[in-house]
């Protein structure tokens, strides 16, 4: 209860009425006509005002309630007798009372009105009220009464909370989305850009917004894009941009990369926003390229197998006939003919090996493990690639160690390794040059070496450090797989690789294998 407990309620009412009467005579703040209980003649408008859904109550400066309208009574579900005289603060829900008290305390002649939102506990539980408090002043500027008009704004409040939550959620999503998101207005200006978009296009944080969308597109694509943009805003719908086309994005440093874009339109009062979700598809395109390359290899393999098959028959006839002829010559003194036939036979066998190599190309097969002559591998590889290297202006110098100890392995796989190195050497010498292929004894006993060196553009230490990685390539058409496969093959043969390279000086690959007699080989079998 308030400090004025002593006074009866009736005395308080009488006091207020007297004050009102005084005010009405002197034209007080609230004007005429409004009254508390028992006051004469509310006009229709005022009655409506008081009796509508708005809650109205009044209290004295110390907070003692003097009046509540019907709506307020219904809202708080209490008899007026119980409320009148009580503190208006009792109407406020407890957590908000301190704020309400401060708010009311601040009202006075300098600040005759104020607005506050707070919770109350009404008939149907906790609700949010929006209240306007106005003070009634006496001629001396003292507060005589405070009138409060309040509305239940629970729904709007909840909506606002929900809106805030949704905004916060959207903002989080926008910031943390994996894709780059750019929002553009119909004038083509970027109004939204998330951190992924800034990073993808190489712009500093916060500096992409405000720029024109053209900044993200290569010059040559701008004309078409402006038209598309106009079309889109004219008839906006959610879709993928440029279906089937390769779109290109442009970074701040001018570099370009392939992208996929899907568009969503967000309407607003000024033509709406086009939201673009951008994905960098460079990696996917590289993988597709690689898959196509593998398919091409497979097709080539099938073709090669077909050719080999066709070759094997005539090679067989030649070989067998020569052997028959050699049998016929037995006992006859025709050493030159016999020698000639032996030469022919040797070449027929070589043709057979080549056909065998073609058959193995591109075919999934179990790698062989048998004693092989590295020199023969070199010779056979040059048979396959020699002509092509010549055409590309590459001169090959071959120095093979006579009597090179044999090693264990798969000749076809090693041919693949050598071919890969030779083709890389060719690519390093676009204007032609020399490749040197050497077989030699290893530095350590029981080892042999294969050395392939070129006089080409060489590699920087940074590039050198990465050449064995799959998918690493410095060539625009490269798949980046050749060397990594070669390294795997070398490893499978218990071999090691050493690379020396200097820009503009050339590159040398030194591959070391254990030979047949090496304990390493015997252990691994």
């Amino acid at each position: 209860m308030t400090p004025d407990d002593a006074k009866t309620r009736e005395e308080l009412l009488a006091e207020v009425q007297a004050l009102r009467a005084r005010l009405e005579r002197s034209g007080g703040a609230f004007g005429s006509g409004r009254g508390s209980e028992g006051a004469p003649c509310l006009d229709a408008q005022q009655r409506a005002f008081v009796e509508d859904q708005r809650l109205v109550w009044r209290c004295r400066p110390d907070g003692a309630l003097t009046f509540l309208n019907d709506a307020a009574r219904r809202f708080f579900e209490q008899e007026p007798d119980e409320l009148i005289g009580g503190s208006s603060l009792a109407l406020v829900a407890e957590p908000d009372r301190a704020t309400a008290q401060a708010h009311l305390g601040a009202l006075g002649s300098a600040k005759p009105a104020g607005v506050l939102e707070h919770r109350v506990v009404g008939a149907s539980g906790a609700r949010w009220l929006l209240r306007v408090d106005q003070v009634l002043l006496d001629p001396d500027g003292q507060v005589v009464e405070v009138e409060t008009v309040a509305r239940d704004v629970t729904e709007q409040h909840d909506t606002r909370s929900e809106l805030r939550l949704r905004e916060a959620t959207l903002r989080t999503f926008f910031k943390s989305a994996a894709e780059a998101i750019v929002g553009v207005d119909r004038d083509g200006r970027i109004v939204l850009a998330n951190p992924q978009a800034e990073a993808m296009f190489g712009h500093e944080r916060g500096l992409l917004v405000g720029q024109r969308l053209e900044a993200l597109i290569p010059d040559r694509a701008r004309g078409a894009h402006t038209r598309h943009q106009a079309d889109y805003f004219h008839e906006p719908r959610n879709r993928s941009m440029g279906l089937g086309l390769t779109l290109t994005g442009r970074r701040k440093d001018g570099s370009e990369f392939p992208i996929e874009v899907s568009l969503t339109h967000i309407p607003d009062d000024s033509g709406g926003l086009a939201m673009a979700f951008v994905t960098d598809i460079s990696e996917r395109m590289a993988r597709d390229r690689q898959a196509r390359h593998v398919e091409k290899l497979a097709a080539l393999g099938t073709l090669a197998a077909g050719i080999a098959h066709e070759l094997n028959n005539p090679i067989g006839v030649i070989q067998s006939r020569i052997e028959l002829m050699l049998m016929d010559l037995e006992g006859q003194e025709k050493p030159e003919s016999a020698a000639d036939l032996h030469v022919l036979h040797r070449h027929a066998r070589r043709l057979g090996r080549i056909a065998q190599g073609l058959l193995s190309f591109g075919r999934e097969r179990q790698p062989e493990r048998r004693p092989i002559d590295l020199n023969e591998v070199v010779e056979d590889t040059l048979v396959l690639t020699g002509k092509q290297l010549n055409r590309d202006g590459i001169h090959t110098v071959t120095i093979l160690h006579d009597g090179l100890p044999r090693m264990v392995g798969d000749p076809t796989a090693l041919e693949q390794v050598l071919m890969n190195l030779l083709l890389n050497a060719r690519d390093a010498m676009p204007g032609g040059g020399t490749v040197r292929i050497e077989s030699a004894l290893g530095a350590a006993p029981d080892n042999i070496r294969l050395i392939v060196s070129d006089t080409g553009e060489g590699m920087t230490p940074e590039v050198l450090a990465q050449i064995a990685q799959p998918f690493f390539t410095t060539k625009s058409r490269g798949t980046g797989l050749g060397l990594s496969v070669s390294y795997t093959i070398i490893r499978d043969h218990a071999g090691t690789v050493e690379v020396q390279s200097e820009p503009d000086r050339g590159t040398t690959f030194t591959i070391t294998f254990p030979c047949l007699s090496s304990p390493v080989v015997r252990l691994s079998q």
Partner: protein
Amino acid sequence: MGCRILVVEDDPDLRETLARLLGRSGYTCLTASSGSDGIRAIEVESPDLVVTDLHMPGTDGLAVMRCAREQVPPIPIVLMTAYPTPEAQPEVRPMILLAKPFANAQFLGAVRQALGNSRQ
């Protein structure tokens, strides 16, 4: 040895070479230039061994092989192919798979092995 060997091969040069080689080694050689001729020859002549190419136009070596196997007793087979494929390894005994091109000595070895197997 007196063994009669049927050579089924569509390439005439290879056919002739093998015939000469077999003749020189003491075998009697019969030849067929196609799969269907080969099957007829098997049924009519009952050779001791069939040497057949795998890939031939029309009836292929597998059909020839099946026919040889169905004879009573089954006739041993040497199958020649320029391209040893996985499917050319059916469960047939006795059968030797010979990859082209081969040395004459290899061929004779295969013939001897096939004849030897069938005698077990």
